[in-house]
């Protein structure tokens, strides 16, 4: 009898744990508000056709919160852009696969997606993952003519992806590091109080590229600026940034340039606030899940972000963001999501097909009107050409009311750079099919 009870207890605990786990796993993949999901049927040439997209990104682990938030963005906008929402009239369906930020897991995820017959994949978090996926997609497409898959990259910014490693099957919707650094250094060049710069980054492809382009562009635009220090730390390993802050202070730097994201940026700025470091921070990812909370009221006026959007874009974007916040109690910040649906819809309408080969050809050189003006996919390297913004962390209100994570603060744009400023040359030698 006691034996049986023991087994029942153990089984119940396992079941409970399993159920909890399952619920948590399903939560992000659940289509939002099914009642409203049925968008009105479009009148486009491909009306009624379903396009399946799989997003391969972390849903658990250190970057899990970021991936989950972005996943909600895909569900939200798939609904907005389906049917009448796009000129082709297709219906978009997005599913999410967790890659735990690991290149190896991502290749498994890609295989799972291909086995389901998916022809469009999306990825963004981690250039290390992106480089592995580009390789795998190239090989797959070479070996499986007629079953090609397109790779839409929403956030991996290593410039190699559109230069030495460029591929016909890869499209990047974020601005790469060389473009962002072009805008950031143009802004820094005008700030005469910046004299000593410290470069701090994560020790992998992205952090190394940020350091490289920061040094290149500053040497070109402000040769008088001294690089007083440079440090690379292992990705997502540092719990305490106080020693780095002490080192930065000792170096006499008035400005820090960092490509850090996630906990690596949150903890860095937090340590700076506590350690009495008053210099400026130039970052890429101040608006990403968790960082606004860590910045809090303290980083006001000192933390800058360079990106293709910010929290107060105005117009339709503001309405979407408010609706998103009401629906998910979360902030939408990965504007590439919108670009992906916009360009896919336009390219499919133009190609009159959802076949990735035809769609890819139609996407080359495609221009669409997006939330901040016209953007273009450059034919030479499949890099989206778009305006970039430098914004600064400040009290929300007035013209810029949107406050991420209810911090009472926001990113206020201080400078806009049109497409041609941030456009950088490419060394891509693309091989096109056929």
């Amino acid at each position, binding site marked *: 009898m006691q034996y049986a009870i023991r087994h029942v207890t153990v089984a119940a605990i396992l079941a409970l744990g399993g159920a909890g786990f399952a619920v948590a796993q399903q939560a992000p993949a659940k289509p939002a508000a099914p009642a409203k999901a049925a968008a009105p049927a479009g009148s486009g040439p491909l009306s009624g056709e379903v396009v399946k997209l799989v997003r391969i990104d972390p849903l658990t682990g*250190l970057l899990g*919160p970021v991936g989950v*938030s972005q996943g909600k963005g895909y569900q939200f906008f798939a609904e907005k852009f389906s049917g009448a929402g796009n000129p082709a009239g297709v219906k978009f369906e997005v599913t999410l696969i967790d890659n735990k930020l690991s290149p190896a897991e991502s290749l498994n995820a890609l295989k799972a997606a291909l086995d389901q017959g998916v022809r469009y994949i999306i990825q963004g978090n981690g250039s290390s993952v992106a480089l592995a996926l580009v390789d795998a997609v190239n090989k797959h497409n070479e070996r499986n003519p007629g079953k090609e898959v397109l790779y839409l990259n929403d956030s991996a910014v290593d410039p190699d992806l559109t230069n030495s490693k460029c591929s016909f099957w890869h499209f990047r919707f974020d601005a790469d590091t060389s473009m962002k650094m072009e805008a950031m250094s143009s802004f820094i060049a005008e700030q005469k109080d910046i004299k000593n710069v410290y470069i701090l980054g994560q020790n992998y492809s992205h952090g190394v590229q940020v350091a490289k382009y920061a040094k290149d562009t500053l040497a070109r635009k402000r040769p008088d600026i001294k690089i007083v220090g440079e440090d690379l730390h292992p990705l997502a390993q540092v719990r*305490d940034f106080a020693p780095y802050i*002490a*080192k930065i202070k*000792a170096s006499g730097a008035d400005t820090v340039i960092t490509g850090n994201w996630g906990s690596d940026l949150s903890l860095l700025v937090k340590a700076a606030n*506590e*350690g*009495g470091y008053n210099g400026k921070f130039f970052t890429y990812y101040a608006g990403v899940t968790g960082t606004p909370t860590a910045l809090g009221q303290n980083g006001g006026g000192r933390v800058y972000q360079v990106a293709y959007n910010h929290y107060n874009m105005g117009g339709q974007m503001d309405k979407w963001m408010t609706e998103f916040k009401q629906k998910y109690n979360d902030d939408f910040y990965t504007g590439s999501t919108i670009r992906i649906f916009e360009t896919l819809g336009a390219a499919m309408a133009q190609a009159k097909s959802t076949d990735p080969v035809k769609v890819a050809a139609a996407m080359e050189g495609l221009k669409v009107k997006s939330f901040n003006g016209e953007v273009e996919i450059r034919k030479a390297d499949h890099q989206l050409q778009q305006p970039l913004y430098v914004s600064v962390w400040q009290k929300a209100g007035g013209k810029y009311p949107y406050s991420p994570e209810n911090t009472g603060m926001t990113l206020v744009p201080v400078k806009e750079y049109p497409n041609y400023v941030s456009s950088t040359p490419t060394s891509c030698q693309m091989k096109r099919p056929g």
Partner: protein
Amino acid sequence: MEFFVISMLNGLSYGLLLFMLSSGLTLIFSMMGVLNFAHASFYMLGAYLGYTVSRFTGFWPALLLAPIVVGGLGAVFERLCLRKVHKYGHVPELLITFGLSYVIIELVQLVWGRIALEFHPPAILQGPAFTLINNSAQGLSLQWGAAPAQLCAAADATIRVVCSPFPATRGFMMLVALVMLGSVWLLLTRTRIGLVIQAALTHPEAVEALGHNVPRVFMLVFGAGSALAGLAGVIGGSTFLTEPAMAATVGSVIFVVVVVGGMGSLSGAFLASLLIGVLQTFAVAFDYSLGTLAQQLGVAPGSALLSSSYVKLTLSQVAPILPYLFLVLILIFRPRGLLGTREG
């Protein structure tokens, strides 16, 4: 000098947080022989519960209540799960705590969501505890609390003034860790219950024959160990960041502390956490690589070797992974750890 003092304090305070985290793990291991994989999850649970409780009662009651709740949950887990698998040996014990760590992470994300929480320390801890003022003309001085602005601004352009505040939260963290060390040590060595706990480990039958309930002692020890993790969680969560990944970021390093210090040795864990905290902090300051070392030793490596990314890797770049290197070295050269008595 000011850099040295601040770095030393940073290192010590980080080391003491590690000690707070690993003391519970050490306690549980030394008393019960269970390597609790879910220990860092109890730390995270402490931070989240501390956050919720502090919204109703303020920080100070939360500092007391959250660890008690976490300790209670730990005791319940020991009573209902761990005890059932105890007789099957070490591996099932280890696996069930491993499973628990995953369950806790998912439950925490279900209840509190996946984004970071704003868990502020109380107002009294938000400013600096003291400020070190390094004036190139007047030398180093210390000012309690925040230093007034005129002291930190140089009147003369030739004088360089650097003010380094030391956060009060870190000072508080150090204080709590030391009090924790003292009280756990006193409890174990100077009280009757400590005597019973120690005896229950080596001679459970004898202790049972004397009328003590050994399983209950184990439950209390597991609960107390979890409560210590919960306490560290409230302090760590408000000092650093309360987020779903916080268990993962400390989970591995506390095992390093426990192994390096010597499995089950409280004083060893104390020594090892201070050592790792200081080692990691100071390593960040050194930009020496194998290449520069070779050059200083008078060896002139070829330019191809010098440009190799491994030879160029500086000490500051590998600082965060030094504890793991340290772990490997300890396991090779002194498997019982610095102060450990147990073999293997």
